[in-house]
């Protein structure tokens, strides 16, 4: 199923993005305020190109977003947004679990009638 593999890819990207200590740190560092790529470059003992690659991986996983401001590339952590979506989905799961319990009950009642 196309939807299935799409979801798996997204999960893969998320796990891959979070599998690296520098990338996890970039997410943390950009949660409170936006930081430019060059500013992030000064935080780690790696090349600016390597930082840019890390940022790209995080953007693809939806963990940070990138905005251009003048000549600067600003990076912002999107984890709060993700966390909020996660919480909402948990609530929604409860809604649907209850709804499907009712679904099954109505199903039992309506198919019972047919069998009689």
């Amino acid at each position: 199923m196309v939807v299935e593999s799409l979801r798996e890819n997204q999960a893969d990207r998320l796990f891959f993005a979070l599998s690296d200590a520098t990338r996890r740190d970039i997410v943390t560092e950009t949660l409170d305020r936006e930081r430019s790529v060059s500013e992030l470059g000064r935080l780690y003992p790696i090349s600016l190109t390597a930082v840019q690659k890390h940022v790209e991986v995080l953007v693809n996983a939806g963990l940070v977003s990138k905005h251009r401001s003048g000549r600067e590339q600003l990076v912002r952590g999107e984890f709060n947004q993700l966390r909020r979506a996660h919480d909402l989905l948990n609530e929604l799961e409860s809604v649907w679990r209850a709804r499907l319990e009712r679904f099954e009950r109505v199903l039992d009642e309506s198919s019972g009638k047919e069998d009689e």
Partner: protein
Amino acid sequence: MTVWNVDKNAEAKTMVITAEFKTSITNVWQLWADPRLLERWWGPPGLPATFGHHDLTPGGTITYFMSGPDGNERFDGTWNVIEVDAPTRLVVEDAIVEDDGTPSDGNSMTRMEIDIEAMGDTTRMILTTHFDSLEGMEHAIATGVAEGMKACMSQIDALLAEAA
């Protein structure tokens, strides 16, 4: 018995629920196709749903409202019917509606794909819900929980009394 699998993707704002029922595919389909059956399970206890217009054809619409016992709470909903392939597939999109029940701008908030498969003695239903926005999710939750567990417990009590 019902077998559950719930797959949530916060990034894609998508949830996939798989449920299995010991009944025929036709019976499962009827719970979506018959508005009188649909309204018996769609709304939570304390906020029952009433389906008005129910045109299950591509391009058709389904309208419903949910209201609390004191009439203070009321939610109106409209689904745009996107795909119908009885008894295996139904796709609807939730439209934002105004207080009078008409779609306000036609924007889709929620897309719901229902896939039903016959699995021998049982029937599997795969429900994929996709949200465009966090607001869409909040709306779905608001119309789904109503008075929450308290009302749910009273419903269970009522059912137990009925069964006894």
